[in-house]
């Protein structure tokens, strides 16, 4: 009956599921920053980098709603098989305050994976810009980009197992990671162990560049978009960004200035995470030049910067 094609909802995930899963451990990574390790091979096999999960304490009404957390990474059990997922959170409010008290052996309610995830990598040089707790999607992104793990291997997934045809060398990846102060830096040892080009920035200069993370990001863009020598083409670039909104807007403007493709991972307040509530809207440009509110959860949370009306 309908000849009208549906607008794509790339973040609507047919394999999403709601589960109660056990906590394996909680680990402090930095000031007010904790890694929650959950046991669930099925979620670990279904998720891809950039997707997120909604988490809440089971059977309670205060706090009530789930909260969205990006996949930090999949963890492997003793036999090398995916054993579950890691989520990393910053203690900021009621729910994360409750999460901080969770102990190994307790269970949490979780639904996901949700959202579209980052696009499959096809670039030669990758710039990642992370601000504060916005670093959480990137351990999985890095692991996939370096060819160290295959995500989304669960049988029957619509997208099939993700396969990066040409993994990048560590030297082809730059991570610009900025926080308020050095004590908030999380996972730096891990990033360093990968051998990638890591550029840290702190607002107070307690570690790395003093100032905004956008400054090292712009230097990278300037260098990599310099006019290539005669007879040579420049590298194919990609910029991935997650962090506070003003920072993402600044990175999007820089990427546009240097004509580098850029993807932003948005975090809008969400009630459900799967498109039912219409809370998490963001302004998306329309073909007619106007804008419309679109749901971050099912049309994102990863958006090409150029479609956003920032």
């Amino acid at each position, binding site marked *: 009956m309908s000849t009208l094609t549906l607008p794509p909802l790339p973040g609507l995930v047919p394999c999403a599921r709601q589960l109660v899963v056990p906590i394996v451990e909680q680990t402090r990574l930095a000031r007010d920053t904790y890694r929650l390790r959950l046991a669930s091979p099925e979620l670990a096999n279904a998720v891809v980098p950039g997707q997120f999960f909604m988490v*809440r304490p089971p059977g309670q009404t205060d706090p009530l709603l789930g909260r969205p957390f990006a996949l930090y990474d999949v963890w492997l059990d003793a036999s090398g098989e995916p054993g579950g997922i890691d989520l990393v959170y910053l203690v900021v409010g009621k729910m994360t305050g409750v999460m901080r008290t969770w102990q190994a052996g307790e269970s949490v309610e979780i639904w996901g994976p949700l959202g579209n995830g980052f696009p499959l990598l096809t670039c030669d040089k990758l710039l990642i810009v992370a601000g504060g707790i916005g670093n959480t999607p990137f351990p999985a992104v890095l692991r996939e980009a370096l060819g160290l793990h295959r995500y989304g291997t669960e049988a029957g997934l619509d997208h099939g197992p993700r396969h990066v045809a040409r993994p990048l060398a560590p030297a082809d990846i730059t991570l610009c990671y900025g926080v308020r102060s050095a004590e908030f830096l999380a996972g730096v040892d891990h990033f360093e162990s990968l051998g990638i080009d890591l550029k840290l920035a702190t607002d107070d200069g307690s570690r790395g560049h003093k100032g905004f993370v956008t400054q090292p990001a712009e230097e990278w863009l300037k260098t990599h978009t310099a006019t290539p020598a005669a007879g040579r083409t420049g590298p194919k670039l990609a910029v991935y960004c997650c962090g506070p909104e003003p920072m993402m807007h600044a990175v999007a403007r820089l990427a546009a200035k240097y004509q580098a493709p850029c993807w932003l991972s948005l975090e809008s307040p969400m009630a459900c995470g799967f498109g039912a509530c*219409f809370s998490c809207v963001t302004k998306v440009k329309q073909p007619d030049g106007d804008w419309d509110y679109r749901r971050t959860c099912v049309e994102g949370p990863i958006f090409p910067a150029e479609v956003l009306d920032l």
Partner: protein
Amino acid sequence: MPNLAVELNRLHLANPILVASGTFGYAREMAAFVPFSKLGGIVPKTITAEPRRGNPPPRTVETASGLLNSIGLDNDGLETFLAKHLEYLVGLGTKVIANIAGHDREEFLQMSGRLGGIEGLSGIELNISCPNVSGGVDFGVDPARTEAIVRGVREVCGLPIVAKLTPNVTDIVAIAQAAQSGGADAVTLTNTFQGMAIDWKHRKPILGNVIGGLSGPAIKPIVLRMVYQVARRVPGLPIIAVGGIGSLNDVMEFLVAGASAVQIGTANFYNPTLAGKLVDELDAALASEGLASVREIVGTLKTP
């Protein structure tokens, strides 16, 4: 096995578990979580005559055991609904009750007239109670206007009619009586309670629209009271209860208070598989009570 079927005048449902408008998207969003054909019915997100962008974010904020929302009827309009969502919805093996909101009586009548001719729909729910749209809440706070809209819709549309009422009134019974006089097959009790949340340090409201509607477990006792009052004082008007239902016990309480059916609302957001499980749980609960049908428990509250 207990008989779960319920008849709300002309609206006949296989079981009394429905999902509430605005909490279930257009069903597509819930496909990973809910076996749709188990449900008594689906009420998709409110449709308006023309597309609406909705309110500026933040559109929701959590409060103690509750959710404040000011979505603002974000939707693509009636014709896009029919073109994009109807075919999917009516193929899900359950009843679909379209929820509509008009700016004025004329628009309610135009929309219900159009929907009355659509094959596959099982009813119309009139949103005369949305607190987030200027004008929308006005119909449902006035008995005369409530009756006039329901009566008008009844004249132009052959589908069963459910009036979704606002709790933001002095006397919910008077509004329910007006809906009955206008010819409503049932009333849905209730829409959200007007409320707000404040960030005092910045001296700012948290919602983009300043004021929103409160839902979730926090409102359940108040809705339960309204269901009880309407059930006692408006005989012959079936009630679909909605307000903070998060478990089978909540469902049973509303049935005992006098509701013939229930809608699962905010719980779809924090427990997306709940609605699909409740039908089996209801079946088991009735069986363990030794009841032959769900109708035997409706309105069985013993009061002193």
